[in-house]
């Protein structure tokens, strides 16, 4: 069944969208990630204009994170104070990101920017995750469990404006979390991702937050930042396609539930290796598009403006 998307102005198969949503949903349920970093490139591949894909994906992430954060609120695993600091940084970052996005769009370089961001971040995160999980896999086979390393307490603790975060049990400066939030906000606006894949490691390793509050707190921040991003794209670029968002979402939510069940039955180390391989595969595909000579050297964009 073909469906005409009113904002993207393309006609696509509704079941393809539901299927894509479902597939990414299964993966996100299995691995506990948002899936935005997979969905946005997939939308490029099926011919959705990049500007629409990024803006719509932000809208979808708000909704798919919503039910997640409710569950975390019930379990009291959201550090609201930390979340608010991250959020303030995130909102600033998102505004900066949209300005950069619109500027490069006027130069015709937005596709390049988005693709480069994806290649760099997916490459780094995927590579680190792959090495780390391979090591973990090797250790677990040998049966030697390495003692958990004591957290580094260096420059993060030497900064001013310290604040007490009770839920996380931390007493640290507000500057590092605000910077983390800012950085993720910029990425969210440019890449159409929630940024959990950057924020979660940063919260654990950089800020030293306890693992149990990390996911809930990052979801809390993601909801507001992506909602803000959606609004910015909707009001400056008119590129949020609500029909596309709802279709992806319905598939995604159902997929996520199935994914959670599958994920619970698979060993964690192997799951991480799989996720890392997947991230690297998407990264590789995007990198090839940049490196290989494209079959069509020309591209069309809306004219006028200047």
């Amino acid at each position, binding site marked *: 069944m073909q469906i005409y998307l009113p904002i993207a102005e393309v006609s696509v198969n509704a079941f393809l969208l539901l299927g894509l949503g479902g597939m990414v949903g299964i993966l996100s349920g299995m691995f506990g990630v948002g899936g935005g970093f997979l969905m946005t490139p997939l939308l490029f591949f099926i011919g959705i204009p990049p500007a629409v894909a990024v803006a719509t994906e932000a809208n979808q992430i708000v909704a798919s994170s*919503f039910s997640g954060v409710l569950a975390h609120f019930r379990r009291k695993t959201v550090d609201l104070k930390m979340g608010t600091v991250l959020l303030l940084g995130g909102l600033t970052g998102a505004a900066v990101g949209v300005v950069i996005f619109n500027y490069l769009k006027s130069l015709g370089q937005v596709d390049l920017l988005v693709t480069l961001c994806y290649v760099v971040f997916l490459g780094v995160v995927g590579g680190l995750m792959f090495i780390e999980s391979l090591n973990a896999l090797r250790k677990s086979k040998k049966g030697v469990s390495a003692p958990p390393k004591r957290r580094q307490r260096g420059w993060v603790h030497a900064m001013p404006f310290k604040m007490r975060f009770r839920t996380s049990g931390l007493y640290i400066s507000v500057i590092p979390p605000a910077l983390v939030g800012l950085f993720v906000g910029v990425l969210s606006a440019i890449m159409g991702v929630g940024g959990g894949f950057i924020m979660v490691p940063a919260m654990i390793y950089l800020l030293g937050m306890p693992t149990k509050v990390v996911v809930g707190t990052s979801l809390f921040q993601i909801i507001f930042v992506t909602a803000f991003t959606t609004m910015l794209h909707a009001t400056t670029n008119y590129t949020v396609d609500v029909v596309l968002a709802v279709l992806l979402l319905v598939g995604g939510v159902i997929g996520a539930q199935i994914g959670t069940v599958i994920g619970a039955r698979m060993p964690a180390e192997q799951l991480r290796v799989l996720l890392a391989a997947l991230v690297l595969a998407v990264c590789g595909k995007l990198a090839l598009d940049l490196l290989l000579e494209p079959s069509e050297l*020309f591209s069309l*964009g809306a004219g006028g403006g200047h």
Partner: protein
Amino acid sequence: MLKRLLITLALCASPALAVDEEVVLGLSQDRVAITANFDGSEILVFGAVKREAPIPPGPPLEVIVAVSGPSGPVTVRRKERKLGIWVNTDSVLVDRAPSFYAVATSAPLNEILSDTEDLRYSVSIARAIRSVGAAMNIRGAQEFADAVVRIRENEGLYSIREDTVAVDEQTLFRTSIEMPADLTEGDYVARIFLTRGGSVVSQFETTIDVRKVGLERFLFNMSRQQPVWYGLMSLVIAIAAGWGASTAFRLLRE
């Protein structure tokens, strides 16, 4: 300059359009509604030639049907390898290119329409795109105009279908124009040309109204006219859909 001269020449050279053959046209539909499940459309174009005198001797009557979508400027960008990766570098603004252009003819176009007449009426795809002015000063600008045609042909937006107009007894003609699913809305112009021996003897023009309707219309208008409310509505709808779907699924499993 050269073009203007050619047009003037063509005007002088061609015999004054003695309108003794006129088009009487019918369309299967003069409006196309883009609905949520819009999957392209096929418009039947049919008509007859009205004439007071008997069929003139000489080359037979040929028919050309050209349908064009709303025109607008298009920025064409070319990729070049920079630092090992392919990036957009040069860009050319093509002044006017239709978003959709389909030509159906009763015989190969170059046999039934002379170059001067093509120039005058802008019938062939290459002529329908206008990239005059500053754009042509850049070297290789023609490549950019060609790229517009090539890309849109590949997307099915531009097409030339020769020998697809059936003409009976030099009087009745019919053809169908297929319109793809990815249409831009606006006024589409259908032009019908009757030619004899390469020159146009009669011309007829009508518009086909292509519009988004219903939900599509509503969402599109709202996103442009009340972007803030549209954004908020998108968020609320998406959250409701997501929360609803997950709750429904949880209830289903329990």
